[in-house]
């Protein structure tokens, strides 16, 4: 069982299309899928009917697994989460197949449509393995139990004496074997086992899980240009739309030159989009759509449209003055959400107080694929193809915009060309559906890069103020943390102007502190733009401030930074609510029993990353290193960054180390890839991050001013160190990002002596 097989990329039969009927992930009732949706398949981007799939007889103990009654027992596994580069399509089906005992070469992977029968499909919060590891294994185990039961019945042996392996059920004592295909018909007549009856294989016996060279399911499609992303779907008779959207949130059209747009050859329609109502949520932005027979004609038509806007009340938003408002907010008392001892008294009597303020601007997702969606509307039903992280939310929003039932809406999930949270929003899906109905033809909505930058859901802009008090012996006796940002909740309810207990879980409340007097306060910040989830969210600025401040405390105390991290975090222990000084911790939806706040694991990654980086040797070696660590999505990550002088740009990152403890993992290569990529996104955030607004309008418009790291910004040597662990799985996609900003700023300080407390670092250094 444990011999890993060499897998080739041909091991998978790839099919990017749609779901097969079956049972809910609780997998207890059999419900036939009478209304099998249509889908699309590569390489030709055209829809094909998948109706024949539902007619295939077979074994379907739940919605994720279907084994056909054909010669080999062709096994279809549904991927119910969206693929955006984290590798779910190369991971989740393998987990199910291994638990089942399937050969990967007999496995077809299909992408689920948006449907509640699949449970939670919101691909967000670094949760696909964290939340579904055991459910996915049970989906495979249920089918295995039924196949074994069928074989055991035929052989008149006990099921416990049989095993499922290589797409066969085997009875080792008598050396008998039957292929899955031969067992499907008998197995499908047996009862689906109850949850409590399922026995999972020992994790280490899952033979392809964590195989170091597990192929990318969609790898060939990616490198041959055949992979289908949102804008690659083409329907017969399809028109292409671009939309002139209001540059200020809540703005409306004052005037436009409809005739000029219609005069552009190829432009077919000029359509007013419905104006959004407060709260903004996932609604389309409004504006005017140009629908044409080519993207180029639509773009030219939009340029001719000459819209003037009524900006509305949000035109008052200016990020330079808002920065001052946020600083004022953290200079005044906020709502205490974490309290231990008496911070005011401790700071009042401290021998020394260190204080610093940190700022992080709005960040834009900037996925390489700008939003796009395709829709058609006929007979009262809408069908959408979209690179959506949240197909059920898209389904609900399309139904709302069209005023039809969700049962009349089909959301097909394409590959996502980078999501990072932007594509959990449904706005582009419902724009396409609305236009398809209005023009009576299939429509693709294509966002330009400027649209993406101007009309996004940005990460919250933030200010923080940290104060620490030392006693006469240099011991830390007080920690006072204030943070002000507009929470994402404001996008759904404008009355929300202050972070909640749930918001502050991200690096403020779940920070273990071996300090007797602690207070953390949430400070007000009104909602001037749409705020949304962005990879690792509030952790970005909290980790930047805390990781920088600990370095400042080390410098002020003339202590080594790692020693200061140890002093702040204290000894290895699990910090309970009482110690943390809070009444509850959202803890990313996990119980504290399963995922405690573990100071030992945070110290563990700090110790590993500093050992890898030869931290203790840095001064002798003439190296300038920065260290930071952070807990997020119940994973523990630490980063060391090395910088060297550069004649033009003042510094260059020449090497980086990242260590992560994420508990149990399933696809070790993709986890390392997330560590590499998360580190680089963290570098982008710190070096260049910054969306600014003036008169309510975003000032950046393309990659020349909304910059992200290019290949030469990235260290040529990146060392990823993943802790081998059997602990419950943590998140993986987001946790590599947060500690990077502070590690980089601390390295720049080590090199230049200049303390940087605000992103982007390039602006702070005048480079």
């Amino acid at each position, binding site marked *: 069982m444990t011999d890993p097989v060499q897998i080739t*990329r041909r091991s998978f039969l790839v099919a990017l299309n749609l779901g097969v009927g079956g049972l809910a992930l609780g997998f207890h009732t059999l419900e036939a899928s009478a209304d099998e949706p249509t889908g699309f398949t590569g390489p*030709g*981007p055209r829809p094909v009917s998948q109706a024949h799939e539902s007619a295939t007889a077979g074994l379907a103990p739940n919605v994720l697994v279907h084994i056909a009654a054909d010669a080999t027992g062709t096994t279809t596994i549904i991927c119910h989460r969206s693929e955006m*580069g984290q590798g779910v399509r190369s991971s989740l089906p393998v987990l199910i197949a291994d638990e089942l005992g399937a050969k990967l070469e007999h496995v077809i992977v299909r992408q689920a449509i948006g449907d509640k029968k699949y449970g939670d499909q919101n691909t967000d919060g670094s949760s696909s393995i964290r939340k579904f590891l055991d459910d996915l294994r049970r989906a495979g185990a249920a089918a295995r139990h039924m196949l074994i039961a069928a074989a055991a019945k035929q052989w008149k042996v006990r099921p416990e004496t049989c095993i499922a392996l290589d797409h066969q059920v085997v009875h080792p004592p008598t050396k008998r074997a039957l292929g899955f295909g031969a067992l499907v018909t008998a197995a499908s007549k047996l009862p689906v086992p109850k949850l409590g009856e399922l026995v999972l294989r020992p994790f280490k016996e899952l033979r392809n899980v964590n195989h170091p*060279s597990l*192929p*990318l399911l*969609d*790898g*060939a499609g*990616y*490198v*041959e*240009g*055949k*992979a*289908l*992303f949102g*804008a690659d779907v*083409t329907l017969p008779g399809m028109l*292409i739309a671009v939309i002139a959207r209001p540059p200020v949130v809540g703005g409306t059209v004052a005037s436009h030159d409809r005739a000029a747009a219609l005069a552009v*050859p190829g432009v077919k329609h000029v359509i007013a989009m419905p104006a959004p109502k407060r709260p903004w949520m996932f609604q389309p932005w409004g504006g005017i759509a140009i629908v044409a027979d*080519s*993207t*180029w004609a639509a773009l030219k038509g939009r340029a001719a449209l000459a819209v003037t806007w009524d900006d509305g009340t949000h035109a008052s938003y200016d990020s330079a003055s808002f920065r001052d408002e946020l600083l004022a907010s953290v200079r005044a008392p906020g709502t205490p959400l974490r309290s231990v001892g008496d911070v005011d008294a401790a700071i009042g009597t401290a021998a020394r107080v260190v204080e610093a303020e940190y700022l992080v601007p709005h960040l834009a997702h*900037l*996925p*390489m*694929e*700008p939003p796009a969606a395709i829709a058609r509307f006929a007979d009262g039903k809408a069908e959408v193809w979209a690179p959506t992280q949240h197909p059920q939310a898209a389904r609900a929003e399309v139904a709302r915009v069209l005023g039809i039932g969700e049962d009349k809406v089909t959301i097909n999930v394409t*590959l*996502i*060309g*980078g*999501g*990072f949270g932007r594509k959990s929003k449904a706005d582009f899906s419902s724009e396409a559906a609305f236009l398809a109905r209005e023009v009576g033809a299939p429509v693709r909505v*294509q966002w*330009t*890069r400027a649209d993406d930058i101007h009309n996004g859901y940005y990460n919250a802009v933030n200010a923080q103020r940290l104060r620490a008090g030392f006693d006469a012996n240099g011991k830390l006796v007080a920690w006072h943390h204030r943070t002000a940002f507009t929470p994402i909740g404001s996008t759904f309810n404008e009355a929300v102007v202050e972070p909640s207990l749930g918001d502050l879980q991200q690096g403020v409340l779940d920070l273990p502190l071996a300090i007797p007097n602690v207070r953390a306060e949430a400070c007000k910040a009104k909602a001037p733009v749409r705020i949304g989830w962005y990879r690792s969210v509030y952790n970005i600025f909290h980790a930047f401030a805390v990781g920088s401040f600990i370095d400042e405390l080390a410098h002020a105390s003339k202590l080594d930074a790692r020693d200061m991290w140890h002093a702040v975090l204290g000894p290895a222990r699990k910090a309970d609510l009482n110690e943390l000084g809070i009444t509850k911790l959202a803890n990313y939806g996990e119980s504290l029993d399963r995922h405690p706040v573990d100071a030992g694991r945070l110290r563990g990654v700090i110790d590993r990353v500093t050992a890898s980086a030869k931290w203790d040797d840095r001064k002798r070696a003439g190296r300038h290193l920065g260290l930071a660590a952070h807990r997020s999505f119940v994973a523990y990550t630490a980063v060391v960054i090395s910088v060297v002088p550069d004649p033009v740009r003042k510094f260059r990152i020449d090497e980086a180390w990242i260590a992560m403890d994420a508990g149990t993992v399933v696809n070790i*290569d*993709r986890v390392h*890839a997330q560590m*590499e*990529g*998360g*580190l*680089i*996104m963290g570098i*982008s955030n710190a070096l260049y991050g910054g969306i600014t607004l003036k008169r309510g309008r975003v000032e950046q418009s*393309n*990659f*020349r001013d909304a910059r*992200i790291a*290019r*290949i*030469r910004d*990235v260290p*040529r*040597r*990146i060392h990823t160190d993943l802790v081998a662990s059997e602990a419950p799985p943590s998140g993986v996609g987001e946790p590599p990002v947060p500690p990077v900003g502070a590690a980089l700023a601390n390295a720049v300080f080590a090199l230049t002596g200049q303390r940087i407390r605000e992103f982007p670092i390039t602006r702070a250094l005048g480079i």
Partner: protein
Amino acid sequence: MKIRVNGVERTLEVDPEMPLLWALRDTLGLTGTKYGCGEALCGACTVHVDGLAVRSCVTPMRRVDGKAVTTIEGLSKDGSHPLQQAWLALRVPQCGFCQTGQIMTAAALLAAKPRPNDADIDAAMAGNLCRCGTYPRIRAAIKKTAGVPRDEPGDDK
């Protein structure tokens, strides 16, 4: 206008100012070439025109009249180009969206300079953005294809 696309002569009746990108995607259905920025800032739309790497999003059709265009679909018939193979072996892609442009730029680099050093790779690939952060593996895959050892002396020049 007549252009030779992946070895096939095509006659296209389109606006001469239409960027090659949209002619490839909308008119010819060659969707492996991607739209990422429209201003030659990200490289997702990279194709070869008479063997040189070109950003198709800012290349009007009139400028490719009579020329030979190679897209990712024509780089190899079956994904057998050594760069495509190296990309798979090192599992370079994450979301995959920018990778066709990355491969087209890398192919032009290796055609001009079969054994590039790190500085050559930095210079050639500077115009191709990847938001997922696959740059280390892109560099490694180019070196693997070129038979250049990784971390060879001079890597950090």
